[in-house]
Each structure stands twice: as C-alpha cells, then as structure tokens.
C-alpha cells in the first residue's frame, strides 16, 4: 500500500462523484422509508428493474438518461400500486404488520431479482452512449465522462425533488403527513392518497436512478443486494426524512468507499457501506440531521 497525496486526491474526487450518485440513488428511499416509514427493502431491486428497463429502451437507440426519464411515469404508477397494496394488506391491519410488511418487501425483492434472471439471464448488461467510454482530463486526473454525466443528472434530480417537497403544495403535504398524520386528517386531506402519491414519486425517482446505475457500469440482477447496504446506510446516516442530509451522507459514503477501494482493494469495499451503517446505528441512530 503506497500512500500518496495524488492517489488520495483522486480517491476523494472520485468519491465525490460517486457520493452524489449514491445520494441520488438513495433519495427515493429517503422519501419512502425516511418520510413514509415503509420498510422498503425492495427499493434497490426496483431501481435495478429500472436499469433493465433502460437497457431495453436503449436497444432502440435511445440515450439512457432519456430512457430513464421515459420510465419515470411508468414507475410512478407502479409505485402507487405497490403502496396501495402494502397499505391495504399491512398498514391498515395494525402493529402485527411490522414483521409481515418487511417479509413482504423481501419477497417482492426476490421476485423482481429472479424475474430479471429469468428474463435476461445472469450476465451483465450495459448500455452505450456518447459519453460512455470517454474520459475527461482534469489537471493530472482522468475522470470518466459517464461519472460526470451521472453526477450532473444526480444534482438536478436531487435539487428538483428537494424544491418540490418544500415549495409545492403537494410536496409540503407529503412532509406534513410524515410529521403529523392526525393533524393532516383534521385539515381534511387524505393521508393515504398523499402517501400513495409520495411513494409513486419515490419509485419514479428510483427509475431514473436505475438509468444512472447502468450508465455508470454494467448491471446484473443481483446488484440490488449491495445497494441495500448503500442506500440504507445513506438514509440512516442522513437521518430519516432529511433531504439535504442525504447528499451529505452520500458524499461521506462515496468518499469512504473510494478511499478504501483505492488503498485496500475491491475485496473490502462492500463492507464499507454496511460497516458505516452499523456504526451509525450503534452510535447515533437518528443520523446527522434526524427528526
């Protein structure tokens, strides 16, 4: 292990790009789990589903980011359906639902993963685009262009979502329902409809995140497993319900992973996100900016 400042700097820069990507990937979970309290273990699986959807659309010659955007309304409807089902089957029936709700999403993730294997096989799939395969030279470093593109889209996505939640009426209703459902009911709004809408948005965001995922690198059906660790550690580190915290937490994770990857190798990298998660849960479970 050679320690050099240049190597560290490169790791940090790469980590920032990666971290923003992780934040974008996790922000859907920040809404569905952080705000709505749904134990959505299947979020990464749905994101991978989005990656494969992007792959299919790209076969017709479309740009992957465009494909992701096209998928968003489809996934929005899908998300609303999933939440409605979850609500009717579990949340409505009370406290015993805790175990069964988690088991349900676990089963859902399994079904999605196996469905993808049956449809596409276990081999890795990737897409092509103008910006995939080229690198940009910044100073002495070579940064792959696709990471910059993903970084850019991630920033736009997160800004849009944060603005939506704080500036629009529906967005603020979503934040309100997370804090005080009873008060919302008294105001005449229907919390279930709002949560359904929010879950739909979270799922749509997951679709675009899936597109970014396949831009950054090849995907395979089992990829959701490592992303369970990454997304949940970001959301928990951020503090449930904090959008700005998601960006900070994503950066922390990205930089940590990048440094470990460059200095200790790939065999230790998966442990970083999960290790971070355990540390946060043990020391400060409410995260950096928790409610």
């Amino acid at each position, binding site marked *: 292990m050679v320690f050099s400042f240049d190597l560290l700097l490169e790791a940090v820069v790469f980590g920032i790009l990666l971290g923003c990507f992780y934040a974008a990937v996790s922000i859907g979970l920040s809404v569905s789990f952080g705000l709505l309290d749904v134990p959505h273990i299947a979020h990464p699986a749905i994101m991978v589903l989005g990656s494969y959807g992007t792959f299919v659309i790209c076969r017709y010659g479309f740009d992957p980011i465009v494909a992701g955007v096209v998928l968003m309304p489809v996934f929005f409807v899908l998300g609303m359906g999933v939440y409605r089902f979850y609500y009717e089957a579990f949340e409505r029936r*009370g*406290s*015993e639902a805790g175990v069964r709700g988690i088991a349900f999403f676990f089963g859902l993730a399994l079904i999605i993963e196996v469905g993808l294997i049956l449809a596409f096989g276990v081999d890795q799939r990737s897409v092509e685009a103008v910006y995939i395969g080229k690198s940009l030279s910044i100073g002495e470093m070579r940064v792959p262009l696709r990471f910059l593109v993903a970084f850019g889209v991630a920033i736009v996505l997160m800004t849009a979502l944060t603005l939506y939640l704080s500036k629009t009426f529906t967005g603020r209703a979503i934040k309100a329902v997370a804090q005080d459902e009873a008060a919302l009911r008294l105001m005449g709004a229907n919390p279930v409809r709002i949560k359904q809408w929010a879950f739909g948005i979270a799922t749509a965001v997951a679709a675009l995140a899936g597109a970014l995922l396949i831009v950054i690198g090849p995907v395979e059906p089992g990829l959701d497993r490592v992303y369970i660790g990454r997304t949940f550690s970001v959301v928990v580190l951020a503090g449930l319900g904090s959008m700005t915290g998601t960006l900070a937490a994503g950066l922390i994770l990205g930089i940590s992973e990048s440094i470990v990857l460059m200095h200790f190798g790939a065999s230790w990298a998966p442990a970083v996100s999960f290790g971070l998660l355990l540390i946060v849960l043990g020391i400060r479970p409410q995260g950096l900016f928790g*409610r």
Partner: protein
Amino acid sequence: MDKILLKIEGVSKHFGGFSALDGVSIAIAGGERFGLIGPNGSGKTTLINCVAGSLRHDAGSIVFDGEEVSRLPAYQRTRRGIARSFQIPRPFASMSVLENLMVPLEYVVHRGLVVTGKTEAQAQDEAMAILRDIGLAEKAVTPSNRLSQVELRKLELARAMAARPQLLISDEAMAGLSSNEVSEVLEILFKLNASGITIIMIEHIMQAVMKFSQRIVCLDAGRIICEGTPASIVQNPDVQRAYLGA
C-alpha cells in the same frame, strides 16, 4: 394528607425545536385523587410518558416514593409501583383477557425464573380477582382483540392494576364512551382509590374530572397555568381561555 408520593420538579421535554413540556412541577400525595387537564397538545400525555419512563425528559427531576427515577427504564419504574393505561388501548392482541394480566403478574409481582405449576395457578387466581373487581370476569378467556371499546378501556385499567401499583395513571380512559360507560369507569377508579391507590386522571370529560379529583392541574402549551380544587379551576379565566381560545 399523607406524604408526597410523586414529585415532579422542573421537568422539560423538547422534540427538535418544539417544547412539549417547559419546567413543569407537581407534587402528588399518597392516596390522592389528582386530575390533569388541558387542551389537545398541551403536553399531558408527554408528561405521563416522562413519568412512566416511555420518554426521557431533558431537564428536571422525577422522584417517586423518595427515589429519583429519571434514569430508570420504564419496566423498572413499573416494578417500583408506577402503572399506566394507554390513551389508545394497546392490548396484547394475541392473548386472552386473562393472559394480558398474566404478563404484569409474572414480570412485576412474581418474577419467578420458571413458572411452576403452583405459581401459575396462583397468578391466575389473582388475575381473576382483578377481573371480577373491574367487571371483566366473564370475558376472561375472550381474545383481547374481540373486545368492545369500554371493555378495552377496562382491560387497560385491569392490566395496570395487575402490576400492583402504588400510583395508577389513567390516560383518557373515558374518551368516546357513552355516559353510562363513563360512570362505570369512574366507579372503578373510585373503588381503586378507596383501596389505597394514588390515581392521576387525565380526561377531557369535565364532569368526570370534577367529580373525581381532589386537586386539579391545568396544562397549556407545556406549562402549568392553574392549580387548585375543582371549584376554583372551573372559574379560572386562564383555563377557560385555554380551552375556548383567546
């Protein structure tokens, strides 16, 4: 009156920027019937949660029976004699009414490592006695998720009583009940107090609170705005303002 059983001094609790309790101080004597009123959101349930141990207060002290209990988890406070019922009943839904009472009997009163044949039978007798007092004896083997509202409220009280408490906190046990049912519950609380149990009653049903309490404290926005006998409370302009709005 007897000596002070529960002394709450300067208790404060914040949730983020929101101050739910702000420097609340109350002293309750042993055997007293104490009423706690206040509009929704005034901090009544938060205060109860801090006393029972479900929440940790941020500042101040809570002394029960001469002992500072602030650092104790809820189950140890129950073992020392503080019992509470829940505003929205939380029965152990997979258990029968009788079994619901077995939990505090086993964990507070008997605490045996192995429930031997004798201890289990003895505990069951004790549970049945409590159910008879409360009026739930015929429902002993009914699954607790099949009870009516008033029966659920009675179960909450019965389960709290099974912990053999010195202090019983009744959190809105009468909310949403018919006037007959309110009288039933009120009678139970009077009977319990007559047997020596200190009772804190949180209620919105003013008639019940007035009839029951020897002393009343009114909370608003986390602070005490009035303290005194039922007669003086009813006439207090601050209390009227708190309930009806300025």
